[in-house]
């Protein structure tokens, strides 16, 4: 009895929703009708059984990554390892830190490999893999609080930009954060790299020992969390302005280092209404404006 993922269209009839276990993907492509059909079918084919593939290696994926070698077998698992390996020497990081971006990349790869598309994206819970044909662009909306509506800012990613991956990490998401950032959004060459880097930068936005920050061992919340007994952030109380600045600076230092090493193309860090942008090229700045829920759903629109 083979488990089937859930496959359906969102209410607009344009975006495909793929769900299996904890994976939720929103997929949209632009191109000729025949190519779209081929691409969506390819996405579904690749998605079917992908979770099982990952789970076959789950214990190893939950172990701290070895910076020197990769013993993982599956293409998604190996991509996860590749994405976190640059950080593994200096940080505790497991391949799971890049799972969302790696899955998004895999599905997008299957679509682009099948059909010629003008542009496409696979959004895995905010970790997004992009495909941009010549002259195409996406405008991307940034959100700092997934539990609230409203776009923080938007930015344009064009075909001539190097970034094909976007990821957001922070304490409001589904996975745990060691830091206190509301959100850290990262642009990188690939979605898996962006995913891993966002995790590292969000963890660095922190005020160790601050009494207003409530932390708890990850395994007390999720017994099989890859973070084990490490303290994850549960709540952040009132912080003084200078404390917010200090926490954001700690994260920005990390982001600048990653930028220098070429691991990211840019990052936007958000904490209690304050934002820092670290980038060679501008994250097109604009003020917070209300957005309708339909836009929030994918945080990316044409």
């Amino acid at each position: 009895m083979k488990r089937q993922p859930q496959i359906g269209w969102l209410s607009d009839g344009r975006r495909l929703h793929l769900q299996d276990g904890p994976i939720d993907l929103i997929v949209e492509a632009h191109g000729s009708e025949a190519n779209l059909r081929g691409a969506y079918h390819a996405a579904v084919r690749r998605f079917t059984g992908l979770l099982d593939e990952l789970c076959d290696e789950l214990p190893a994926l939950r172990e701290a990554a070895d910076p020197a070698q990769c013993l993982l077998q599956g293409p998604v698992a190996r991509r996860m390892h590749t994405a976190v390996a640059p950080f593994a020497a200096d940080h505790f990081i497991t391949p799971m830190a890049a799972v969302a971006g790696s899955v998004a990349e895999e599905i997008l790869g299957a679509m682009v490999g099948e059909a010629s598309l003008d542009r496409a994206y696979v959004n895995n819970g905010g970790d997004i893999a992009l495909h941009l044909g010549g002259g195409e662009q996406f405008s991307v909306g940034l959100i700092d609080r997934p539990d609230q509506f409203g776009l923080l800012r938007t930015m344009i990613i064009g075909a001539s930009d190097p970034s094909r991956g976007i990821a957001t990490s922070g304490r409001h998401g589904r996975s745990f954060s060691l830091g206190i950032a509301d959100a850290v959004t990262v642009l990188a060459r690939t979605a898996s790299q962006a995913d891993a880097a966002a995790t590292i930068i969000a963890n660095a936005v922190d005020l160790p020992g601050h009494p207003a920050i409530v932390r708890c061992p990850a395994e007390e919340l999720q017994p099989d969390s890859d973070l084990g007994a490490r303290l994850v952030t549960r709540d952040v109380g009132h912080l003084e302005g200078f404390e917010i600045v200090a926490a954001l600076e700690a994260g920005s230092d990390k982001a600048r280092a990653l930028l220098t090493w070429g691991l990211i193309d840019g990052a936007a860090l958000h904490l209690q209404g304050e934002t820092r942008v670290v980038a060679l090229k501008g994250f097109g700045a604009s003020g917070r404006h209300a957005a309708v829920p339909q836009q929030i759903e994918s945080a990316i629109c044409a």
Partner: protein
Amino acid sequence: MQTDATTSATDKIRCDACPVMCYIKPGAAGACDRYANHDGQLVRVDPHIVLERTKSHGGRLVPFQAGGDWDGKIVHEPDVFVTAIGAGTTYPDYKPAPFIVSSQIDGVDMVTVVTEGIFSYCGVKVKIDTDRYLGPETATVRVQGEAVGHVTTSEYGSQMLSLGGVHHLTGGSKKEGRVTCDALMDLSNCKPVELVIDGGASVVVQAGYPPIVNGVAEERMRVGCGSATIGMFAKQWHGKVDEVVVVDDHITGVLSEHQAGKLLDVADTGIKMKGRRSTPGRYFQVAEPGTGWGGTKISDPLTVLGPFDPKVARPGMTMLMVSTTGEHAAYYELDAALKPIEKTLPADLKLSVERIQENCEPALCTVLFMGGAGGSLRAGVTDNPVRLTRSVKDALTRVTSGGAPVYVWPGGGITFMVDVTRLPAGAFGYVPTPALVAPIEFTLRLSDYAALGGHMDHVRPLASLKANPETRQMAPPPSGSRL
């Protein structure tokens, strides 16, 4: 909605809804945020649309509905059933039910009218599987000293209670109403409630769990009394053993003396029972009640026997002793001095003991919620309430509660009963009236809905609910019980 989950040694459970196989702690959700551990049970905590039709994984494909010339092969979406849980409502229900949803079911344009009904005319019927004496018929049943209902009839192997109803909810003191409402809600949400019966026992009732009578958990319903057990199994024992004693604290049965044995021409064995003989082969009070064999306090069954009659008994005679639940059994042969010596239970007799066990069902408390859909609730569904009633009676409209099947009583109104264990966790709520809030859904053809005066201008396609901000996350209810 529950799926299988294995309980590990600790209080966390292992979810098997997907291959990630998360360990989930009580009150927490798995990695997917879709399944959670509620009091040791795996529950689904999806947004508003909580029940997917459980279908075998036949892989039936739902046609692609967004138009165009798609071949329909890529969409695989489980059928969803919109339930009323969390739909929200107002009282009285003068405005259309919060969600009037249309969805395609088997090509028929169906409508599911979803509302949460407020039932001040409601109660629960409780069936408690026990042979213990709970109290006299019509005795008052109390929670925290307040009258919440009464003892009604005794049924086979069980005692019925009738709790709630409008007189306890709104007819008594304020406290009586509040306590009754709390008790009904907890019982309906499958939480344990301690009930104290005037002139009788204290019993902890929790739907789907064994009753705890005066602090002792009931385990199995016995297959029958010792005498009844002889009657049921005499033929299976005949020819395989000379004597059978079924030990029971109520009526102990003896095969060779019992009418069933006589009919099979079972020969006398010279057995001598202790206790008071009722009719042939049936003995009262062979031992004090307890937790040993057959609800007696004995651990050695031979203590209920006197010496065999040497004029009748002969060496080599065989005897099976078994309890009414089959939990205890022993096999004996008489030696030269006519003393029973325990031997290994022969395979064919072992089978009969297992058959007794198999026929002893686990003792449970079962709770049926019973409520009547009043005129105002029905008005939320149609502008001519009585037509909804007629439509239900004519079987054009299907009534469900939280997606669970209901029994609709014949006669006037829409009075239904539902097994509370079939609803998703936390389905019932309350309003301070006091009254219970229970989900109720009416499903009918769109055309029939229009014909009975439905609020057609409020009908919404199912797809609009999925992305709608009004859709609420159904939070797992707070854990812990009132005990």
